[in-house]
């Protein structure tokens, strides 16, 4: 019974709101319990793809039927949502101690989970739209409960952009409803297939607009930085982990289930791929490049990681757009892996913020001594993000490279390489500024985060390595999905994936790394211990240093590199949107000045004028 996945979180949300008023920890525990329950029940129904449910309603003369069904794709996303929300809920039990809006946070968090479930299981446009709107509204409230003024503006911009996209979705969907008489996907798909190609493409693009916005692809990525940067520290992992992915769920539905690829098959091709999908891939590449460059410039750690999410999304869209078996499974792999390592990074940063209270990298330093586990979690996550072998990040990037090289798209491959190489830079920046270097005097007595916040980080580190070594687990479900969507599957085994130019055996590599690690441990153990030196006992060529001044170099870490792209970053896209809306609304101002000049005689004059004009118009016709 699929509606339980929506109503259980919704009911729990109101319970969490009331209970949290009394005890700050109650809300987060309820969220954790609900997500665990969802995870369990999803695991039980794995494989029963025929599970569906529909109820129809004659509303105001419209015969509407709301369909819900379980597909492998929606099952995977549902599992990912409930898993990540479970981990975040456990993490936020303690971290919300000082959070003013914690009861509103838990209410909206559970509602977001419920509405995402609704979006995933919807098989008709109306249910999809209703839950999509609910998801947007509740996540709007979540984001605006973050840092005071900036969170409000960020959430405001996010909502306006998603609302505009949702309205284009509504318009296209109702147009289809008029032609086919129902909102379900299947009749719409076959109506679009045998409809005139340009109109179908236009309709499908209008339908996919909200998904592009939510996925944060290049022209529409403006909201991501501010929303992630200013959202409450517990919601950022979910926002960049899961919410961005729901956009991709929609895109896959549009590309495959609404037969977008079948429609554009016979349009003009470019190097063996329909022009439109090559354009999407190009957009992905541009997103990677801009995301990476802008990430390097950031001084606020959450904004930096937000831009890195944007650039990682570029990889996924490239994989989906080229629609080869390797490409599709690569992007699905990267989608899952990005969720895992990105939420680890955000949880680690949340731990740092929980302890130090600041998100600016240059205000902290040398936390490795006080918070070793957070450092370890952060380190494994950025190794995965950069794509170094033993972790899961490497596998998905490797598969995407294979797909690109197999089709011979050099520019896209180049952009992908640039993305992963440059990611070393922006990934290393928080590592060195936050964790390495000297510990600031005021952070001397910082302790490690409490146990309940350690557990999610430990689990995630384990999963990163687990999927790094045994990608087969992920490939099982991905092959189910590609079978369901009609894409041939890549042959794989528990620990190896067959690429275009040879297989990748992760177990063998893991053994080599493990051996290397052991040797390094031995050398470290046996060799002479280095003398522990006080951090602030700095020596600088004879000059006598009196105060505890730290030589920890953290501000504008990559200044020379940033100077290369100064002019590019200046023309940021948000500026373009800002000016666009500003002078649209300024016309309202001039409208008011012309007409509502405050003189009652002008008002009376306009009414007589209307009479004369309409009489003249009537007389001419």
């Amino acid at each position: 019974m699929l509606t339980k996945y929506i109503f259980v979180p919704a009911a729990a949300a109101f319970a969490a709101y009331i209970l949290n008023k009394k005890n700050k920890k109650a809300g987060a525990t309820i969220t954790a319990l609900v997500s665990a329950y969802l995870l369990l029940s999803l695991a039980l129904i794995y494989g029963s793809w025929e599970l569906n449910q529909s109820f129809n309603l004659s509303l105001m003369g419209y015969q509407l039927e709301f369909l819900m069904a379980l597909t492998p794709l929606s099952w995977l996303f549902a599992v990912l949502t409930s898993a990540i929300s479970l981990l975040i809920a456990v993490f936020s039990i303690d971290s919300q101690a000082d959070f003013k809006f914690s009861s509103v946070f838990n209410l909206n968090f559970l509602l977001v989970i419920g509405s995402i479930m609704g979006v995933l299981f919807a098989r008709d446009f109306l249910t999809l739209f209703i839950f999509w709107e609910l998801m947007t509204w509740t996540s709007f409230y979540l984001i605006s409960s973050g840092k005071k003024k900036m969170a409000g503006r960020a959430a405001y911009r996010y909502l306006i952009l998603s609302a505009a996209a949702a309205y284009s979705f509504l318009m296209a969907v109702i147009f289809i409803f008029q032609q086919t008489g129902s909102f379900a996907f299947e009749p719409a798909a076959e109506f679009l297939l045998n409809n005139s190609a340009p109109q179908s493409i236009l309709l499908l693009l209008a339908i996919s607009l909200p998904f592009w916005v939510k996925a944060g692809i290049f022209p529409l990525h403006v909201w991501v930085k501010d929303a992630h940067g200013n959202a409450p520290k517990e919601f950022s992992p979910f926002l960049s982990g899961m919410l961005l992915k729901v956009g991709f769920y929609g895109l896959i539905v549009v590309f495959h289930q609404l037969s977008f690829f079948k429609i554009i098959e016979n349009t003009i091709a470019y190097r063996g791929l329909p022009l439109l999908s090559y354009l999407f891939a190009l957009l992905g590449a541009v997103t990677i490049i801009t995301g990476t460059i802008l990430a390097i410039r950031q001084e606020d750690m959450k904004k930096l990681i937000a831009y890195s999410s944007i650039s990682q999304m570029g990889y996924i869209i490239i994989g989906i757009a080229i629609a080869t078996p390797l490409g599709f499974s690569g992007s699905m792999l990267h989608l899952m892996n990005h969720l895992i390592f990105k939420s680890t990074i955000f949880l680690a940063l949340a731990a740092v913020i929980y302890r130090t209270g600041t998100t600016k990298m240059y205000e902290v330093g040398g936390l490795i001594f006080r918070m070793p586990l957070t450092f370890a979690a952060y380190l494994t996550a950025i190794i995965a993000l950069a794509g170094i072998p033993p972790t899961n990040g490497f596998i998905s990037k490797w598969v995407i490279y294979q797909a690109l090289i197999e089709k011979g798209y050099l520019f896209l491959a180049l952009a992908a390489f640039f993305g992963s190489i440059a990611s070393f830079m922006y990934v290393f920046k928080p590592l060195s500024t936050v964790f390495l270097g000297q510990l600031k005097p005021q952070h001397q007595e910082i302790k490690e985060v409490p146990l309940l916040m350690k557990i999610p980080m430990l689990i995630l580190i384990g999963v990163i390595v687990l999927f790094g070594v045994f990608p087969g687990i992920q490939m099982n479900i991905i092959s189910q999905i590609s079978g369901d969507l009609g894409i041939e599957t890549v042959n794989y085994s528990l620990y190896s994936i067959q690429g275009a130019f040879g297989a990748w055996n992760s177990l063998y590599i893991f053994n080599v790394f493990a051996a290397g690690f052991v040797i390094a441990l031995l050398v470290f153990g046996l060799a002479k211990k280095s003398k522990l030196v006080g951090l602030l006992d700095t020596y600088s060529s004879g000059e006598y240093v009196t105060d505890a001044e730290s030589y920890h170099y953290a501000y504008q870490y990559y200044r020379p590199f940033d100077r290369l792209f100064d002019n590019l970053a200046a023309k940021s896209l948000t500026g373009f949107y800002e000016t666009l809306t500003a002078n649209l609304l300024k016309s309202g101002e001039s409208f008011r000045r012309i007409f509502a000049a405050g003189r009652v005689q002008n008002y009376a004059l306009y009414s007589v004028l209307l009479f004369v004009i309409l009489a003249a118009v009537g007389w001419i016709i």
Partner: protein
Amino acid sequence: MLNFLEEWSFFGGSILLIFIGLYGVLSRKNMIKILISLGLMDTGVNLLLVALGYVEAANAPIINSVNPSNAAAFVDPIPQALVLTSIVIGTAVLALGLALVMKIYDKYSTLNISEIRGLKW
């Protein structure tokens, strides 16, 4: 010929009166003059309404000793009833308008409407 003159004087006259009243409302600066023109417009419309109901060589719609039976030709009574009501409504609105003018005068101590810009927006 006389009838033509009469027709044009009544219809034309009342419409001209409406025109003068409307022009007065739109152009005059003084608030009391605006209300006067509003009154003129009302009178003009009332005149037009009754003129529309006039019948040549018919007598007033009252049965009395002079024309005892309803067989005689009468003028249309309905516009007269409507005008009766509309005159009183016009006066009521004007009286309220004048009270408002007096109140506004207490605040701005001027009757010139362009100097009363309290409600800019």
